[in-house]
């Protein structure tokens, strides 16, 4: 039993011991700090009011903030002094250049295609992986649990890096001019990493009664999964995928900045060459596209729920 304890359990026990130690540290701090004044009630009972730690917390916070302010060269005066600079930028960006429209539409469509295909591939890949690494389905085999923990750890490592880093790395692997392909792969890696996590966490909260009942009739685990669990998770799976699509659309506007295709490519070009009216047009189209896709996906997700 103890040997099969998963990394999740281990991390949980680590968490508990951390909290326990923290409590003892906190009690030491309590002893160091001066006691607040005792309050004597009308009937003579003495009451110790709880210590207020807020002043110490704020002092520590203030020290950290000052240190960080020093590092980042934070300068609020500069912010107010140069604030008018932004009006030149915004006044031009809010005057979109409508003649730029055709090129923008093409690139927006490319962005949507990248996000769509990337989400599709990532979503297709995530369902079987989520099945294989849901701890509650495989807790009877120790070897499987071992591999599950390894896969989960590498997935959480995969999630720590932003999509942009993947795009930049993948860009090196292909010939020049394959930006959209790179973007699609980056989107699918990102989708895979977060969707798998969402799915296995959802499966692990499910009641396995039906699954175990069907498994006990002698069918394989996979068959029991497709009969008992899949119908339960399928609508959640669709709505999570749509949610990922929403995120991906927004993120893939950035991907072009490193050359990975989509709207970001021309947005970068117009911003760098000071064609802010054209940037304004791009932003307008992106705004409309993202909001309408979000509205559609929200409507579908509401019907799925």
């Amino acid at each position, binding site marked *: 039993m103890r040997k099969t304890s998963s990394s999740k359990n281990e991390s949980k026990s680590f968490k508990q011991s951390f*909290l326990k130690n923290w409590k003892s540290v906190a009690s030491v701090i309590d002893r160091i700090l001066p006691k607040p004044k005792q309050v004597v009630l009308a009937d003579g009972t003495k009451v110790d009011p709880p210590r207020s730690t807020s002043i110490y917390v704020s002092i520590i916070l203030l020290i950290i903030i000052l240190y960080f302010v020093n590092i980042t060269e934070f300068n609020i005066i500069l912010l107010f002094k140069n604030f008018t600079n932004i009006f030149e930028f*915004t006044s031009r960006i809010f005057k979109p250049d409508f003649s730029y429209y055709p090129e923008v539409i093409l690139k927006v469509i490319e962005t949507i295609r990248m996000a769509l295909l990337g989400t599709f591939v990532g979503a297709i890949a995530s369902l079987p992986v989520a099945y294989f690494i849901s701890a509650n389905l495989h807790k009877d085999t120790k070897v499987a649990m071992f591999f599950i923990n390894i896969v989960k750890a590498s997935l959480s490592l995969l999630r720590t890096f932003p999509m942009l880093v993947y795009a930049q790395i993948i860009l090196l692997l292909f010939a020049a001019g394959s930006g959209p392909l790179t973007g699609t792969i980056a989107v699918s890696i990102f989708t895979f990493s977060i969707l798998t996590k969402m799915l296995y966490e959802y499966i692990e909260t499910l009641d396995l009664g039906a699954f175990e009942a069907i498994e006990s009739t002698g069918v394989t685990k996979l068959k029991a999964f497709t009969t008992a669990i899949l119908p339960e998770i399928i609508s959640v799976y669709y709505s999570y995928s749509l949610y990922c699509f929403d995120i991906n659309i927004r993120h893939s*506007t950035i991907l072009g900045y490193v050359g990975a295709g989509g709207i970001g490519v021309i947005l970068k070009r117009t*911003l760098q060459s000071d064609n802010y009216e054209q940037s304004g047009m791009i932003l307008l189209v992106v705004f409309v596209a993202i909001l309408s896709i979000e509205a559609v996906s929200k409507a579908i997700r509401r019907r799925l729920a």
Partner: protein
Amino acid sequence: MNEKHIVNENVISQYNNAPKMSRAKIISFVAVIILVLWSIMGISFDGFNGKGFEVAMRLLGSFLEPNKIILFGDNAYSVRVLGLETLAIAFLGTIFGALMAIPIAFLAARNIMPKFVNLFFQGTITGIRVFPVFVIGVAVIKITGFGPFAGVITMGITSIGMMTKLYVEAIEGINKNVLEALDATGCSTFQKIRFGIIPQLTAQFLSTAIYRFEINVKNAAVLGLVGAGGIGGPLLNAISAGRFSDASAYLIGLGVMVLIIEFFSNVIREKLA
């Protein structure tokens, strides 16, 4: 074939009554397939060449040997200095964003403000959320010039969207009975805010801020693009210039930092919830 094993009539009838593929399902299935085919047609797959495999091998090889000077050193391009800068940007950016999000959240809350006011501010939030990060970055750099200070302000502005959304949810979920009870004891408006509203909101506000801090550290790579400081710029430069062992050192630094912060953020948020 299976029928002869099934003895019970009820089972057969249940089996026949099982939900079939409805029209909506078929339509959505076909729609998804068409959309996917449409996207495949738009993306060229000609980029595959022999070079890719070679680069991948070289990449993997150097990722296993991170640049030790960058990973453990103390110069201006080391993980320690840049990581601390990233942390500082994310921290101050989160505080800056939270300070701006709180008033906006109160203005955008449906249970406090009249309808036209909160509609206006809800629209503002959506606008901020949809704007790509580096557009905000470019605008901010016009004010502050290049450097980590620009990163702080950009982080702050991009944080507003999500933070306000969650703050609004917290404010809309306030239990008004508490305020009525305080009213009954004869509290002044200030006392009502101090003992009735603030205690209800602090936990959720803090946990949102901590969650956003986690995201901000993760997004540090994006800021490097526009020259707004942090570990992102050197990391992306190292990758695109093919200095993979440097990139590996930065990635390890970023990964360890993010995992540690994630751990602490989970612990604290679990306690706050």
